[in-house]
C-alpha cells in the first residue's frame, strides 16, 4: 500500500439548480478516520461519491485534492451499506473481484490470509446466499481490504446489521483499516463516536465539528467518554440546545 494521503474537499454542490450543500471544506487527515454524520438527504453520500469519482447527479463546483498532489483515482476503495457481493461467486471469488475485473491474476495466498483475518476461513468456498448478514459484510470488508487502497470510503457500511453484529464489524473494520485515510459516512452517532478521530455533522447549512474523545479508536461501546460524545452528537443532530 502507498502511504495514506490527506484529502481536502472544498466547494459546493447544486442539484437541478437548487443548492444541495453550501460552500464547505472537509478535510480527511492522513491515516485517520473521519466521521461524517447527518440526517438522510443532506448530501453525505454525495460528498463520498464525489471523492470516489462516481456520478452523483449533482453539479459540484470546487476542488478535491490529495495533499501529495497525486490524483486520487486508483487509490480509493469503496464499501457501502449493500454488500454488493456477486451471487454467483464464492467468498474467495468475491474477495478477488478487483483483479478479475482488471484482468489481473489475483494473489490467492493474500486473499486467503485476508479472508482468515475477517474470520471467514471456514466459508471460503460458500456463495453469498449461504452466509448470514454479518458474514456477508465481512466478505465485503475482505474485498475492500484486498484492494489494498490507502483511502477507504465507507457509506453506512454497517447500518443494515443487528446491534451485536454491527459492534463486532466496527471493531474488525477499525482494526483492519487502521493507518488508512477513512471517510465514514453514517447516520448513527454511536458509530461516529466509536470510530472517528475527527467527526463532522453535516446539515443544510454546512459542516459543524463534533467533539470526539481523545482516546484511540476503536473505542469500547460502553466507554463513558464515548457515550457522552454520542449523547452530545445526538443533541446536535436533533438540534436540541
Amino acid at each position, binding site marked *: 500500500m502507498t502511504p495514506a494521503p490527506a484529502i481536502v474537499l472544498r466547494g459546493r454542490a447544486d442539484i437541478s439548480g437548487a443548492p444541495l450543500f453550501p460552500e464547505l471544506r472537509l478535510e480527511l487527515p492522513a491515516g485517520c478516520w473521519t466521521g461524517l454524520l447527518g440526517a438522510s438527504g443532506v448530501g453525505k453520500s454525495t460528498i463520498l461519491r464525489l471523492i470516489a469519482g462516481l456520478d452523483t447527479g449533482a453539479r459540484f463546483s470546487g476542488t478535491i485534492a490529495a495533499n501529495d498532489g497525486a490524483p486520487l483515482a486508483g487509490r480509493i476503495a469503496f464499501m457501502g451499506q449493500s454488500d454488493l457481493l456477486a451471487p454467483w461467486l464464492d467468498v474467495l471469488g468475491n474477495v478477488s473481484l478487483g483483479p478479475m*475485473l482488471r484482468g489481473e491474476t489475483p494473489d490467492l495466498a493474500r486473499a486467503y490470509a485476508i479472508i482468515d483475518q475477517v474470520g471467514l476461513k471456514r466459508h471460503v468456498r460458500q456463495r453469498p446466499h449461504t452466509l448470514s448478514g454479518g458474514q456477508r459484510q465481512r466478505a465485503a470488508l475482505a474485498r475492500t481490504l484486498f484492494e489494498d487502497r490507502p483511502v477507504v470510503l465507507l457509506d453506512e457500511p454497517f447500518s443494515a446489521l443487528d446491534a451485536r453484529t454491527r459492534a463486532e464489524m466496527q471493531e474488525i473494520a477499525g482494526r483492519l483499516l487502521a493507518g488508512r485515510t477513512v471517510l465514514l459516512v453514517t447516520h448513527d452517532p454511536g458509530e461516529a463516536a466509536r470510530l472517528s478521530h475527527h467527526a463532522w455533522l453535516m446539515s443544510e447549512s454546512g459542516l459543524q465539528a463534533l467533539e470526539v474523545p481523545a482516546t484511540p479508536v476503536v473505542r469500547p461501546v460502553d466507554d463513558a467518554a464515548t457515550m457522552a460524545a454520542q449523547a452530545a452528537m445526538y443533541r446536535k443532530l436533533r438540534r436540541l440546545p
Partner: protein
Amino acid sequence: MKAMSTGLLRALLAAAFIVVLWQAVVSLTGAPHFILPGPVRVAQTFWTSRDLIFENALVTWAQIVIGLLLGALFGIYTAISLAISPASRVMMRPFIVFAQAIPVFALAPVITLWLGYGMASKIVVVVLMIYFPVASAFFDGLMRTPQGSLDLAQTMNARPLYTMFRLRVPHALPALASGLRLAAVAAPMGSVIGEWVGASQGLGHLMLLANGRAQTDLMFAALLALAVFTVLLYFIVDLFGRWLTQRYGEPAA
C-alpha cells in the same frame, strides 16, 4: 427430485383429462372421423404411420433445434453488442424494432422464395421468430446490473470488457433464461409456419398433405409428434433456465 416427479404426475393427469374430454366430445357430438377423429383412432394412425411421421418429425425437430441454437446465439450476440456500445444502440435499435414489426408470417413466403423448399428457409424463420425475445430479454438484463456493482467496478478501475463479461453478463443470465423459455415455445411455431408456406418434408408439410386428403387422423398424429416434442423442448430449456437462475442469481433462502 420429488418436485419433478410430482410435476410429471400432474402433467400426466392433465394429459389424461384432455384425452377423456376429447373422447367425450367425439362420442357426444357423433362427429365423423374426418372432422374430429377420436383419440383411439389417432393413436392407431400414429402407430401404423409411425415411419412416415418419424421421418418427417426428424426434419422438423432438427429445424427447431438448429434454429433455436442459432437464434439464441444471434440474440445473445446482439444484446451484448448493444449493451457495450451506446452508438450501436442508437443505430441498431430501429432496425431491430422494424424487423420485429413485420410479422414472420408475412416474411416466410419471401424467405422460402429465396432459400428454397429445404430446411434452410425454415431454420431462418425459426431464427427470426426467436431472435427478438432472446435479444430483448438478455439486453434488458444487461442494462439492469445494479448501479452499486457498477460503481464498485469503477472504483476498482475495472476494464470495460471485463466488467461486461465478468459482472454484467453473469448478472443478466437469469434474464436470458426467461428469453430462452419464450424462444423454446416460439421455435416450433416458426418451423411449422415455414413448412406451411412451402416444403417437401416435415411435420407441417405432412399435416398439409393429410389435410388435403381428408386424413384428419394423420394430421392429428403429426400434431401429436410436434406437441410432445415442444413440451419436451420446453421442459429441457426450463430446466437449463432454472439452473442458470440458481447458479447466477441469488437463490431464495
